[in-house]
């Protein structure tokens, strides 16, 4: 019997990867949804007996989708597929009724094993080579045109999840993950993007260069100064919160987020980056004073912006990964495996 399977993810790359990872000899019909609302509609049409669900999406995210499925008692089995690998995220989706949680990017082996475990799929007898793949029809929705930006966004998504997981473990908290913002910016736009934040607040920031495989750039971690009190609490720093302690906290969080994020990206690009030593850009300054961009040397930058927030604490920081203009070609080549 043909099973209707629904893949819900805002990223076209992720939808495609997911569809490609499903067993070749599994008799299914595939539908796609770009966010939770589309997914709920598709389930009601009977297109999603099994739902592969992403967590971080616009319009309606994965958590809300799970809540709605439970509330409306919709007939579907949900397997969450996410880059958010914090144990707390795992626990929350299980509590909301998901039958399993798999981390992005997933593999054919992991997925078939899981589907077998739940009795949803049984591999056909004989070797895979002589089993003809079952024709899979796409019933609704589409993978969509895969653009270069989507690839970078998906890569950032996975890397950001790995970094958040480390931070969550260090601080013993739940880190709220956003959808990473990917843009090709002119220098002037970068300054604008940075100064959009509250003009009266002050910030502290560190930057760290990375380079490898013809790709280079800088990671910038920008902390709003109001965050330090809570971070100190979480890291159990006692005593007065002076400039030195703040610098200590800033470097600690920067080591983790920058290290894990750039490593995560390098891994997915099948390379590795050398990291320079972090440099303090400034403490207690206006955002506009942090970056005195060398506007003469470069015009454009590929910017990935990730805003990390910590649940129940007044902590927020911006991680900016800025790639130089001349890195973009090499980045493109390494991303081609995601695009074809």
């Amino acid at each position, binding site marked *: 019997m043909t099973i209707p399977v629904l893949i819900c993810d805002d990223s076209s790359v992720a939808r495609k990867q997911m569809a490609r990872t499903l067993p070749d000899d599994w008799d299914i019909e595939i539908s796609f949804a770009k966010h939770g609302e589309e997914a709920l509609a598709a389930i009601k049409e009977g297109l999603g007996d099994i739902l592969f669900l992403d967590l971080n999406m616009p319009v309606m995210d994965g958590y809300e989708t799970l809540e709605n499925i439970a509330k409306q008692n919709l007939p579907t089995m949900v397997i969450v597929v996410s880059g958010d690998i914090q144990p707390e995220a795992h626990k929350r989706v299980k509590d909301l009724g998901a039958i399993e949680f798999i981390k992005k990017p997933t593999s054919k082996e992991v997925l078939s094993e899981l589907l077998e475990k739940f009795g949803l799929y049984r591999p056909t007898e004989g070797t895979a080579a002589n089993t003809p793949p079952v024709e899979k029809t796409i019933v609704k929705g589409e993978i969509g045109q895969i653009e270069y930006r989507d690839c970078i966004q998906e890569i950032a998504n996975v890397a950001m999840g790995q970094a958040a997981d*480390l931070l969550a*473990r*260090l601080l013993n908290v739940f880190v709220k993950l956003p959808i990473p913002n990917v843009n090709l910016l002119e220098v002037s736009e970068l300054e604008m993007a940075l100064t959009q934040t509250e003009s009266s607040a002050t910030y502290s920031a560190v930057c*760290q260069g990375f380079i490898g495989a013809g790709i280079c750039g800088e990671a910038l971690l920008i902390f709003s100064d109001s965050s330090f009190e809570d971070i100190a609490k979480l890291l159990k720093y006692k005593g007065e919160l002076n400039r*030195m302690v703040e*610098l*200590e906290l800033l*470097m*600690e969080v*920067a*080591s*983790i987020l920058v*290290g*894990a994020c750039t*490593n995560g990206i390098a891994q997915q690009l099948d390379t590795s980056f050398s*990291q320079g*030593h*972090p*440099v*303090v850009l400034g403490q207690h300054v206006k955002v506009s004073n942090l970056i005195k961009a060398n506007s003469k040397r470069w015009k454009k930058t590929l910017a990935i912006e990730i805003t990390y927030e910590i649940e129940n604490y007044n902590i927020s920081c911006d991680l900016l990964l800025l790639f130089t203009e001349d890195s973009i070609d090499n980045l493109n080549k390494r991303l081609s495996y995601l695009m074809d």
Partner: protein
Amino acid sequence: MSEPTIDIKEFHWLMEMLQTIDVGLVVLDKEHNINVWNSFMESHSGLTPLQTKDKNIFDLFEELPKDWLMHKTGSVFMLKNRSFMTWEQRPYLFKFKNNRPITGTEPFMYQNITISPLGSTDGSVNHVAIIIYDVTDIAANRNALEKANLELETLSRTDRLTQLNNRGYWEECLSKEFSRYQRYKTTCSVIMFDIDHFKKVNDTYGHQAGDEVIRLVSKVLTKNLRATDIAGRYGGEEFGVILGNTDAEAAMIFCERVREEIAALDVTYEGQLIKFTVSLGISQAVDSTPDYVTWLNQADQALYASKEGGRNQTNTFKH
């Protein structure tokens, strides 16, 4: 295909390279026992690899910030992620001497530190590498720059002859004091005073004698200042003082003390006795004072009244 192998000769020069590289290299196990100690560490600490092998690092170096370092290595072991520390956070981890003991300006070596997880063949992390970079020159340059900037700042607001604040900076302070007054309504007064018949001193005894007189007046003034009072040389022989938390009456006491001390001074210049006096004017800030310029002008008017009244006296501006 066989695994690439390193023969023993190659291994020897690889080790040699790690030994002689000009950064500190220490490998610690989970108990913080030393596994690797390269020659940079040996030279600077005076301890040989043999003396440090399998010894606990905190036993050998009691001055190490134990809690701090254990917190750092702990998170590297747990998260398998590199950790960075800069000299701005902590000038050094190991207290080593400056590499340039003669010409260097700093007594010790500033260090940047990286702690890296070292994966074993089975993927677990049982060791960390601590890498120590000598960044003394960078730190020394930065410190020298900050010191120079500070000196420049002081220079740019100090009067060379008297070491009092110069007119520009003093007026800046006056404007700030007035804003504070407008906001918090704290009592405050400003004083203007100058040396009587200063031109005659200059003409009779020469400019150097005049300079000496100005220096002595500043000295008396400085001696009578409280910590929060701000004095400045306003013009040639004109001075201004900002008195925070002081009403006109208290300012009068201050002025009279300065005036009497100056009148009592006996200045001998090249064998000649010079006597001189000062005239002073006070203005207390009040609700109707519109701005600091007017406030200062009122003190100037009171000073003019003292001149008119026969000099060597103090007057208060009547609002």
